[in-house]
């Protein structure tokens, strides 16, 4: 029994110690399943996965067309004031990489431009981002919106008139 105990201790120690030697308690990412033959050291910091803002541009109307299946699960549309519209169609979907000092522009269906930029990353998988909407002339429509969100979280900018309805911009932080 003594030998079994020693073997068990060695096995558990061998399995667990390398995981914690990585300094992390969960901060290190798993080795990528790449074709590289070189093993990844747990001490080697991996580049942080860049985050993006996924913008879903919806057109809300009362044309009795229902909700576009491409929208997926978005229970907010069933709540007021979104429930005032019975039809939601996906007009566009874009992914804007979030990079500091490099704001990204997205042309909206109404000719205006949505600009999204990264302010900073206060925590892991968390960003502070700035958004604004400008008219084609360059005049501001929404001067500035600053949001702090984690990966997977979304916020909505809605209300702009567009073709017998309004535009609903669902902006979500994604990896």
């Amino acid at each position: 029994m003594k030998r079994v105990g020693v073997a068990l201790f060695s096995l558990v120690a061998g399995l667990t110690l390398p995981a914690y030697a990585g300094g992390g308690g969960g901060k290190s990412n798993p080795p990528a399943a790449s074709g590289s033959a070189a093993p990844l050291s747990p001490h080697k910091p991996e580049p942080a996965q860049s985050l993006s803002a996924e913008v879903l541009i919806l057109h809300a109307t009362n044309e009795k067309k229902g909700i576009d299946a491409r929208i997926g699960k978005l229970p907010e549309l069933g709540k007021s004031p979104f429930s005032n519209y019975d039809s939601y169609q996906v007009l566009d979907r874009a992914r804007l990489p979030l990079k500091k000092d490099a704001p990204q522009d997205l042309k909206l269906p109404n000719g205006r431009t949505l600009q999204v930029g990264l302010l900073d990353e206060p925590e892991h998988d968390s960003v502070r981002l700035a958004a604004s909407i400008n008219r084609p002339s360059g005049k501001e429509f929404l001067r500035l919106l600053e949001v702090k969100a984690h990966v997977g979280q979304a916020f909505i900018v809605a209300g702009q008139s567009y073709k017998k309805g309004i535009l609903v911009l669902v902006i979500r932080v994604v990896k």
Partner: protein
Amino acid sequence: MSVSRELLMRYHDGAVSEAEARLVEEAIESDPALLEELEAYSELGSFVRVWAEANTDKHFDIADSVMSAIEPSKPSPRVSSLLPRVATWVSLGAAIAAGSVLVARSWSAPPAVIGGPHAAGAADQAALSAPASSAAPEVSAALEEEPAPPPATIESVDFGKNTGSVFVVSTDSSETPVVWMPDDGEPDDDNEDRSKSL
């Protein structure tokens, strides 16, 4: 005339020939001290006999003694039960599983979120927040135990010359901050209908 002590003892034991017996008896007649010595042999014999009888009950056999000493340390018959082996392998499997879970968890678990609720800063700051939406990637049961990240927060909004409102839409699974900003009626400069180009 004297006889040897050895002959006297054999005479006492009756292990002498007739000639030797006659010789001893003649010596005793001439020397009464030999008779006393002969009587002493008798007493000694009685003593030895009594001692032997007294120790007869305490029968000591070295073979039995050794065997009795060995008996307790004799290994018990080996029971060929499967239970100890099964328990050993179950323990080993559990240890491997626990180690694997720890390794996988340390590789994949995101760090715990640090920080409290967001403090309202500027006067126009709208402290609206929402938890992670339901569209977030599925997480394992182990990760679900970790505290949920603080909800999304609209830290500030500047409507400029326009008007708008900020509120939260709550659902069963999320609370999403919303900036509602209707058009102010001011037409865009080019006033072009771009919907046809989409």
